[in-house]
C-alpha cells in the first residue's frame, strides 16, 4: 500500500471553517431562533444543608419560563449521578445529584435551574432566588481532610474514599541491601484544564417523533447519550448526542454526565422547547473539574551508582467533593511514577480523600505529572547525595532497549498489566543532552555566576501509557460519486481528527485525501465508542479507521475483480480508480464499484448511470446479495488492544533566576518525545507545544487558591494566571527546541503511540530541577512563583527548619 499521506504534515481540513468564523460550537447552534437559556443558582457555601428554597420573587421576572429544583426531577434523573469507573479499592464512592438534594458539598454546586428567554433574564431571576442554608464546616486541603476534624460526607467520617496498595518485589530486602536511603516530602497543588470554551449543552425535543437531540461540548458523546437515555427514561434509539466543534477539553469534558447534561435535556423535554446552557467562565471555575493536588512521602534505598533498590511511596490525593470518575488519577500516579526505570522493589500506597471543593477528574496528564515529579525529584536527590551527574543516575536506572516488552508487575489504569511494549530511553537521553547543551552547562553556569547571574539546568523523564481500550470503531463508506465518508465514535477538541483520520483512510483506500470526509463524535453516525482521553484517539480510532478502510478496500477489490474478471490480487486502487496493476486500461472508478456493490441501482446520479456499463447480468441461481454479504461498499471495524502502548519522552530546561527579585525566566527548553509512528508530524508537534505550555503554566503560574472556608478566591482570569505568549519560551526566538524519536508500537496496525498529553507531563519536575540547580534551595512543592522562591531563599539563609512562606489568600503568611 502506497503511503502517500501517512507521516506527512498535511494541512488541516478543519481550518477553512475555523479561520473564517464558520466553526459551529455548541453556543452557536440555532442562534437567534429563540432557544430558551438556562442559568443556575449555585451554592455559595463549601458545605451546607439546604433548609429552604424560595423562588417566589424569581417566578415573576418577565421572561422566566420555568424554575426547577431536585424535587422536580423524576425517575432516574432524581438519583445520584453515576460512578463511571468503580474500583474495589474505592470503598466509599460518593456522587452528587443533577440538582442538589438536601446538602451541598462544594461552592459552585448547582441547586436551582432557571430557564428564561435569554441568559440575562435567567441570571436576573437566579439572583432573586433565596436559598436558606445551614452552613456546615468546610474541609479544605489534604491536611484538613486527613485530620478529619470534620467530615465532607457524614457517613465517611475519615474522609477517605479509597485506599490502595500495590507492591512489586521485596521492599524490605531492597532496603536492607541499600547502602543509602533518603526521604522526601513533596507537594503539587491543584490546577485545572481551563479550556477556552467552557461546557455547553443544547437540547431539542421533537414531540412528533418523541426523540431528543442534544449537542454537548463533551469528550464522550456516546456515553453522554447512554447517560441521558437512562436518566430521562428514553429508549437509546430515541436519543442522539453530537459533539460539534469543541473549544478544547484537556480532560475537563471527559467526565459525564455533567449535571447540566441531565437537567438541560430534562427541561427541553418538559417544556417541549429547545433549551440551551452555555457555561460562563466563573461557573467553569467552580463547577467543572480540577486536578493535580497531591502530597507525597517517599523513601528510597539506593546503591553507590544511584540504582534504586527499594522505593516506597505514600501519597494522598485530593479528590474534591465527589468521585464520579473513580480513582483513575491516583492509579495513574501510582503506576506511571515508575517512568522509564526499573527499581528493585516498589510499593505505592495512596489514600484518596474528600474535601469540600470542586471534583477532581483527569486533566491532561491525569496523575502522571505528580508521579513524574515524585520520581524525578527523587532521582535528583539521589544524584545530589552521591555527588553524581543527574543524567548518569537516571541512565543507571533505565530499562534497556533489549528488555522490551518490560513487565513492571503492576495493574495499569485499564485494568491490564503494566507492560511497556517498546522504547529506547538511553538514546532519548543522548539526544536530549545534546539539544539542551547538558555537558557544556557547567561552564555556562560558571560564566554566568561571574557576571552575577544565576543559571540552572534541569531535566525530567517520563513514560506515558497511551491508547487504553477497551475499543474504538470506525465506519468507512464509499459513496457512488467516489467520495468517502468516515465516521468514528470518539470526539475532537482540536486534535485535527478530521484531517489525520482522512490521511489514514485515503492511504488505505488509495483515494485522494480531498475525497475523504470524517465525522467525529456524532451518535447518529457511529454508535459505539469510548471517548477522547488518555492520548488514545490516534491509536484507537486510527487503528479502527485503518481496519475499516481495509475491509472496504477488500470488498471493493472483490466486487471489481468479479466485474473485470480478474483476480482480486491483481488489482489495486490508485487515485480512486480500481485497476489491474500494470494495466491501467482495465479499470473502474471506485464510485462505480460502490454503485455495483448494491444490486438496487436506481440511476439517481451520473455515477450510477455510468456504472451500468460495467454491470453484468445477475446469476439467476444465486440471491442478489450473498448470505455473508451486504449491499453497499462499506467497512466497519473495531480496534481493541491487548493493553496500552507506552510512549515516552524527556525534557530539559535552562532557567535564569533574578538574584534580587527571584523572578524565574526559562532561557531554553528542549523536548525529546517518542510517540511511535506519527500520522501527521505537524499535528503531533502542535500537541507537544500545547502540552509544554500547560506544563509551564502548571509549574510557574496556575493553581486553584481555596481559602479555608472553601471559597475559590481566584475564580477569574485576572487571578488564575493562564500564560500569554510572553510567559512561554518561543521556538521563533530560539527558546524551544524539539527532537523526536520513533519506536513503533507492536500492538496496533499502524505502530502508533499516543501524543496528546506528552508535553505537559514532566514540566514541573524539569523546572523544579533547574531552579534548584540555579539557587541551591530544595524545591519540593509546585507551582513555584517569584514570591515563594524569594521566601524559600531567604528562609534557607535564615532558618532552614521553618516551612516556606507562600502567598496566601487569607492575607496571612503561612
Amino acid at each position, binding site marked *: 500500500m502506497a503511503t502517500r499521506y501517512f507521516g506527512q504534515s498535511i494541512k488541516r481540513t478543519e481550518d477553512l471553517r475555523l479561520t473564517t468564523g464558520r466553526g459551529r460550537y455548541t453556543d452557536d447552534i440555532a442562534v437567534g431562533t429563540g432557544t430558551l437559556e438556562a442559568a443556575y443558582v449555585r451554592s455559595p457555601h463549601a458545605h451546607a444543608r439546604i433548609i429552604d428554597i424560595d423562588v417566589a420573587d424569581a417566578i415573576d421576572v418577565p421572561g422566566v419560563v420555568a424554575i426547577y429544583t431536585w424535587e422536580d426531577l423524576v425517575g432516574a434523573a432524581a438519583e445520584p449521578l453515576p460512578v463511571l469507573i468503580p474500583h474495589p479499592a474505592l470503598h466509599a464512592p460518593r456522587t452528587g445529584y443533577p440538582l442538589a438534594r438536601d446538602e451541598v458539598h462544594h461552592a459552585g454546586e448547582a441547586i436551582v435551574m432557571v430557564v428564561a428567554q435569554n441568559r440575562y433574564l435567567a441570571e436576573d431571576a437566579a*439572583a432573586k432566588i433565596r436559598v436558606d442554608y445551614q452552613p456546615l464546616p468546610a474541609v479544605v486541603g489534604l491536611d484538613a481532610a486527613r485530620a478529619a476534624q470534620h467530615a465532607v460526607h457524614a457517613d465517611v467520617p475519615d474522609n477517605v474514599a479509597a485506599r490502595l496498595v500495590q507492591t512489586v518485589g521485596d521492599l524490605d530486602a531492597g532496603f536492607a541491601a541499600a547502602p543509602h536511603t533518603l526521604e522526601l516530602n513533596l507537594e503539587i497543588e491543584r490546577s485545572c484544564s481551563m479550556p477556552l470554551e467552557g461546557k455547553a449543552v443544547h437540547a431539542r425535543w421533537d414531540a412528533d417523533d418523541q426523540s431528543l437531540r442534544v449537542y454537548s461540548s463533551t469528550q464522550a458523546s456516546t456515553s453522554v447519550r447512554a447517560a441521558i437515555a437512562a436518566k430521562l427514561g428514553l429508549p437509546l434509539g430515541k436519543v442522539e448526542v453530537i459533539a460539534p466543534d469543541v473549544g478544547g477539553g484537556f480532560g475537563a469534558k471527559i467526565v459525564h454526565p455533567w449535571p447540566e447534561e441531565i437537567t438541560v435535556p430534562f427541561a427541553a423535554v418538559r417544556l417541549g422547547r429547545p433549551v440551551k446552557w452555555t457555561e460562563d467562565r*466563573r461557573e467553569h471555575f467552580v463547577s467543572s473539574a480540577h486536578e493535580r493536588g497531591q502530597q507525597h512521602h517517599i523513601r528510597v534505598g539506593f546503591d553507590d551508582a544511584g540504582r534504586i533498590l527499594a522505593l516506597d511511596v505514600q501519597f494522598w490525593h485530593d479528590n474534591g467533593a465527589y468521585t464520579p470518575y473513580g480513582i483513575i488519577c491516583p492509579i495513574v500516579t501510582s503506576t506511571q511514577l515508575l517512568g522509564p526505570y526499573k527499581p528493585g522493589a516498589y510499593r505505592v500506597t495512596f489514600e484518596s480523600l474528600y474535601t469540600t471543593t470542586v471534583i477532581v477528574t483527569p486533566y491532561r496528564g491525569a496523575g502522571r505529572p505528580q508521579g513524574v515529579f515524585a520520581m524525578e525529584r527523587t532521582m535528583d536527590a539521589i544524584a545530589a547525595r552521591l555527588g553524581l551527574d543527574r543524567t548518569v543516575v537516571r541512565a543507571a536506572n533505565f530499562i534497556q532497549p533489549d528488555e522490551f516488552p518490560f513487565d513492571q508487575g503492576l495493574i495499569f489504569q485499564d485494568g491490564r498489566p503494566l507492560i511497556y511494549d517498546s522504547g529506547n530511553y538511553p538514546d532519548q537521553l543522548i539526544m536530549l543532552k545534546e539539544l539542551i547543551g547538558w555537558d557544556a552547562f557547567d561552564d555556562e553556569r560558571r560564566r554566568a555566576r561571574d557576571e552575577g547571574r544565576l543559571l540552572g539546568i534541569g531535566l525530567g523523564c517520563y513514560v506515558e501509557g497511551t491508547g487504553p481500550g477497551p475499543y474504538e470503531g470506525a465506519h468507512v463508506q464509499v459513496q457512488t460519486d467516489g467520495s468517502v465518508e468516515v465516521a468514528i465514535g470518539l470526539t475532537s477538541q482540536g486534535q485535527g481528527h478530521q484531517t489525520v483520520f482522512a490521511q489514514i483512510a485515503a492511504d488505505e483506500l488509495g483515494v485522494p485525501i480531498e475525497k475523504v470526509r470524517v465525522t467525529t463524535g456524532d451518535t447518529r453516525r457511529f454508535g459505539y465508542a469510548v471517548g477522547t482521553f488518555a492520548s488514545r484517539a490516534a491509536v484507537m480510532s486510527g487503528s479502527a479507521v485503518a481496519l475499516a478502510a481495509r475491509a472496504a478496500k477488500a470488498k471493493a477489490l472483490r466486487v471489481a475483480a468479479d466485474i473485470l474478471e480478474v483476480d482480486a490480487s491483481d488489482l489495486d486502487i490508485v487515485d480512486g480508480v480500481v485497476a489491474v496493476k500494470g494495466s491501467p486500461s482495465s479499470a473502474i472508478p471506485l464510485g462505480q464499484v460502490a454503485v455495483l456493490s448494491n444490486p438496487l441501482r436506481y440511476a439517481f446520479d451520473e455515477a450510477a448511470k455510468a456504472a451500468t456499463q460495467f454491470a453484468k447480468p445477475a446469476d439467476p441461481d444465486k440471491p442478489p446479495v450473498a448470505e455473508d454479504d451486504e449491499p453497499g461498499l462499506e467497512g466497519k471495524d473495531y480496534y481493541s488492544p491487548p493493553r496500552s502502548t507506552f510512549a515516552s519522552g524527556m525534557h530539559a530546561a535552562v532557567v535564569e533566576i533574578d538574584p534580587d*527579585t527571584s523572578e524565574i525566566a526559562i532561557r531554553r527548553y528542549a523536548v525529546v518525545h517518542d510517540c511511535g509512528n506519527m500520522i501527521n508530524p505537524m499535528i503531533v508537534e502542535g500537541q507537544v507545544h500545547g502540552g509544554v505550555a500547560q506544563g509551564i503554566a502548571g509549574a510557574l503560574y496556575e493553581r486553584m487558591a481555596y481559602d479555608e472556608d472553601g471559597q475559590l478566591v*481566584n*475564580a477569574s482570569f485576572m*487571578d488564575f494566571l493562564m500564560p500569554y505568549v*510572553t510567559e512561554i519560551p518561543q521556538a521563533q526566538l530560539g527558546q524551544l527546541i524539539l527532537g523526536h524519536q520513533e519506536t513503533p508500537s507492536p500492538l496496533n496496525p499502524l505502530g502508533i503511540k499516543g501524543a496528546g498529553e506528552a508535553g505537559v507531563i514532566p514540566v514541573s519536575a524539569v523546572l523544579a530541577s533547574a531552579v534548584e540547580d540555579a539557587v541551591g534551595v530544595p524545591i519540593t512543592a509546585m507551582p513555584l512563583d517569584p514570591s515563594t522562591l524569594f*521566601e524559600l531563599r531567604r528562609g534557607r539563609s535564615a532558618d532552614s527548619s521553618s516551612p516556606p512562606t507562600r*502567598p496566601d489568600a487569607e492575607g496571612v503568611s503561612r
Partner: protein
Amino acid sequence: MGQDVGMKPAPFVWHGPETVAEALDLLAEVGPQGKVLAGGQSLVPVLAMRLAEPAHLVDINRIAELDTLTVDETGVRIGALARHRRVERDAAAGRSQPLLPQALAMVAHPTIRNRGTSVGSLAHADPSGELTTVLALTGGTVTAASTAGSREIAAADFFVGPLESALRPDELATSAFFPALAARSGTAFLEVSRRHGDYALCGVAATVTLDENDDVAVVRCGYLSVAETPVVVDLTEAWQSGGDDAAAAARAAVDPITDLHATADYRRQLAGVLTGRAVRQAIAAAHHGQETAA
C-alpha cells in the same frame, strides 16, 4: 449583592449625552445611583460580575468635546475621552512628560489601551494603576465638573483609598493634568508583574533632576501596589548616601499586603530593588537628555 457566578450585568438605564452640560445635568439627577462609563475596561467586568449594580449608566463616549489632548510648556492635559493609546503615542506628550508613555506601555495590553481612557483609569483610583502613581508623583491634578461648577483636585487629595477617588457622585472628571518634566531631568518606570500586562506586584516611577554640574540634585519615586494609595517618596538624601540606603528608605516607606500573588515582604523587597534600577535608569535618561539638548 455580587453573585458568585454569572457574567451578565444587571439591568440599567443607559444615557448617551452628547455634551458635557448634558452629562452634568444627568449626573446631578442620577449620580448617586449611577456610574460614568468611559472606556469601560475596568467598569464593565465589575458590572458583569454584579459587584456593582448601578441603576443608571452615563455613557460619555459620544461627548466629542472630551476627546482632547493638549500639550503646552506647563504640561499635558488629557481630556476624559482620550484613549490610553492616543496618549501613549502622542510624541509631544511624551516629550513633555516621558513618564506618560513609559507608564502607559505597562497598562494591560494594547487592545485594552485602544478603548480604556487615561482619565477613566485615574477616576478608578486603583493603587495598582500605573497612571495613578504617575499623577501622584508628578503632582498632577484632576478637573471635576458638576452643575455646581468645576474644581481642580490635586493628586494627593484625589486618591482617597483603594478604588476610591474624591469625586462626588454628581461629578464628572473632565480632564487630568500632568505637569511637564522639569529641565535637566530623566524618568523611568519599572514594574514586576506575574504575567506580561498584569497588575504590578510592585512598580516604581522615578524622576531624577540634575543640577548645573550634571550631578543628581533631586530623586523622587512613586510606588504602585504597595499601599492603599500611591506612595510618593523623596529619596534625594537617601540616594546621596548610596543606592542601598535609597532601597532601604523605599522599603520603609511602603506598606504592602500579602495576597494571592505575593507576600508583603516580597513586595517590600521589590520596592527596594526596583528603586535602585529605576533611579539609575532615570539618571541615565537625564544625562542622555542633557547630551541631546546640548
